[in-house]
């Protein structure tokens, strides 16, 4: 186990506390840098989705994880970013300009959503953000002169510095990865400065934050704006990755996916956003596997145990029907959320910390270390 000996205030400010970080993150960056040249294009494409989802995850983490304001409306922010890009692209606006414009516009709309949200808490805020998402979805479907309605919109290839960056090229991968890294660095900077601490203060006790001089309303709006802007930027990349956008892509289910990203990854940590994104992107191949291979496997098992030919065919059909049933994805999402909330509220990152501690303290690890305990009942009177 490593014991840090701090000799300077700088030790608590810098982002890399010790050399171990440089090595592990250096290796990670090196692996990510050579990934598009060695891995298959399918996996690289999945990595791009991981980057985009992780970016949104970081954005949502700022709002939900650090400021404590739940949102089920982030698909709408993603949509606003994506459509801004699609719309401006028609007028030959260069990529850097519409990329910035999309982020700023989404940020401004996020701030506007933040104002009415100031008076709402918990479940009411969730409902308000869901309604916002529905309104946006409806606008996208109806405002045909701008969005082409339900027909959807083609998004052309990115033109950056006179060269095309196709959506399956290594260049696009590096664009998404680079933006994710920038977002994470910016967020880390925010978290170690007064604004980030004010966010956390609002999450843990609004009353105390207020009495310490934090303008709670202002910081909530700031948090909404930052979170929305990051999601808007990610929306541009999302649109380019899919090369086609239509209203039915930005539904409640997408918002729930973003919640899964931060919940599964582990709220309160940026690692969580990335881990959650990896987890989420892996669900789809898993579902495909479920659809293609599992019915055959079950039938095989049944046959081994001596089921008749007809019975085997029957079992196979039923299994296939279950595996390809409508809404299976939603059910699996629900199950995952329930299981994580019950058994691992700290998410994948929490699990990782536990494993790490286990090896650091071996053989002295105590399970009770992470047991949540209530020492006293917190007052809710002044809320």
């Amino acid at each position, binding site marked *: 186990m490593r014991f840090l000996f701090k000799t300077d205030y700088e030790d608590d400010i810098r982002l890399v506390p010790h050399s171990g970080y440089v090595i592990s993150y250096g290796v990670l960056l090196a692996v990510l840098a050579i990934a598009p040249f060695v891995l298959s294009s399918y996996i690289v494409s999945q990595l791009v989705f991981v980057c985009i989802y992780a970016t949104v995850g970081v954005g949502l983490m700022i709002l939900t994880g650090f400021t404590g304001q739940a949102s089920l409306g982030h698909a709408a922010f993603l949509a606003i970013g994506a459509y801004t890009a699609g719309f401006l692209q028609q007028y030959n606006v260069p990529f850097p300009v519409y990329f910035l414009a999309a982020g700023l516009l989404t940020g401004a709309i996020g701030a506007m959503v933040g104002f009415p949200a100031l008076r709402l808490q918990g479940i009411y805020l969730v409902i308000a953000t869901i309604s916002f998402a529905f309104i946006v979805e409806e606008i996208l479907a109806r405002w045909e002169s701008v969005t082409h309605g339900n027909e959807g919109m083609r998004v052309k290839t990115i033109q950056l510095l006179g060269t095309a960056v196709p959506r399956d090229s290594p260049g696009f991968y590096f664009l998404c990865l680079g933006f994710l890294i920038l977002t994470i660095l910016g967020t880390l900077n925010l978290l170690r400065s*007064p604004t980030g601490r004010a966010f956390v203060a609002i999450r843990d006790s609004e009353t105390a934050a207020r*009495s310490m001089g934090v303008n709670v309303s202002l910081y909530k709006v700031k948090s909404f704006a930052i979170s929305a802007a990051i999601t808007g930027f990610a929306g541009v990349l999302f649109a380019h990755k899919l090369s086609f956008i239509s209203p039915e892509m930005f539904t409640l289910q997408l918002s729930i996916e973003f919640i899964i990203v931060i919940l599964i990854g582990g709220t309160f940590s940026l690692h969580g956003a990335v881990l959650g994104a990896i987890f989420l992107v892996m669900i789809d191949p898993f579902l495909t596997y479920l659809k293609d291979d599992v019915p055959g496997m079950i039938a095989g098992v049944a046959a081994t145990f001596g089921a008749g030919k007809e019975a085997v065919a029957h079992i196979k059909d039923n299994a296939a029907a279950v595996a390809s049933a409508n809404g299976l994805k939603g059910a699996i999402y629900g199950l995952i959320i329930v299981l994580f909330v019950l058994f691992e509220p700290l998410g994948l990152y929490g699990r990782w910390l536990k494993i790490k501690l286990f090896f650091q303290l071996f053989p002295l690890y105590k399970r009770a270390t992470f047991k949540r305990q209530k020492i006293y009942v917190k007052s809710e009177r002044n809320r």
Partner: protein
Amino acid sequence: MSYFRAEDLSLHFGGLKAVDSVSFAVEKGEILSIIGPNGAGKSSIFNLISRIYAPTSGRIFFEDQDITKQPPYEIAGLGIARTFQNIELFENATMLSNLLVGRHRHSTTQLWQELLFLPSVRAHEKAHRRRVEQVIEFLDLEVYRDKLISGLPYGVRKVIELARALCSEPKLILLDEPSSGLNVEETGDMSFWIRDLKADLGVTVLMVEHDMSLVNRVSDRVIALNYGKVIAMGSPSEVQRHPDVVAAYLGA
């Protein structure tokens, strides 16, 4: 002119008069305690001062400025800090970041500077940290720097809350039952610190307290409340002998 003054302060919840035209003044550099039975309106007065509640009527002055209509977050900016009866710390943060939030009223950096963590932000952070370290040393909290609040015992949290209030460099500090939930030894420490606040840091203290031995040890003056009204005011021994106070506590 008094340093801090409440004039005819009232807070009514429907027919219930939680605070009923209370007037008092605090002189610069004194320790004033408010005592009274449960439900007398002591904490309500604090919540009126820190603007968690808006008064039904009456006015509050601090340094000759009317602060009755100030938004709650600007009260700290004026130099009034407070602690809470039931501890309102930021549970899932370390003690250090809790104390740094106390510095919030002194932070001047802009959002875009913070996103880039410019050298100016870094310099500010170090300056804040330096002030926080002074408070940590003052209250002997060195061992808890990187500990999460959620894992700390009650007595320590109580001190950390005082520390957080001190980090904002207040001129007037409101202590809501600083000794509640503390053992005898911790209460003794608390009384030393409250006197040090006055002697070393020159902070004016307004405090609500039930523990009469603590009140006697530290207070310059005492106000007794009952049913939202002031029933006695004066030195600790005067107030304790006052017939109305005896009646309020023991029944007439």
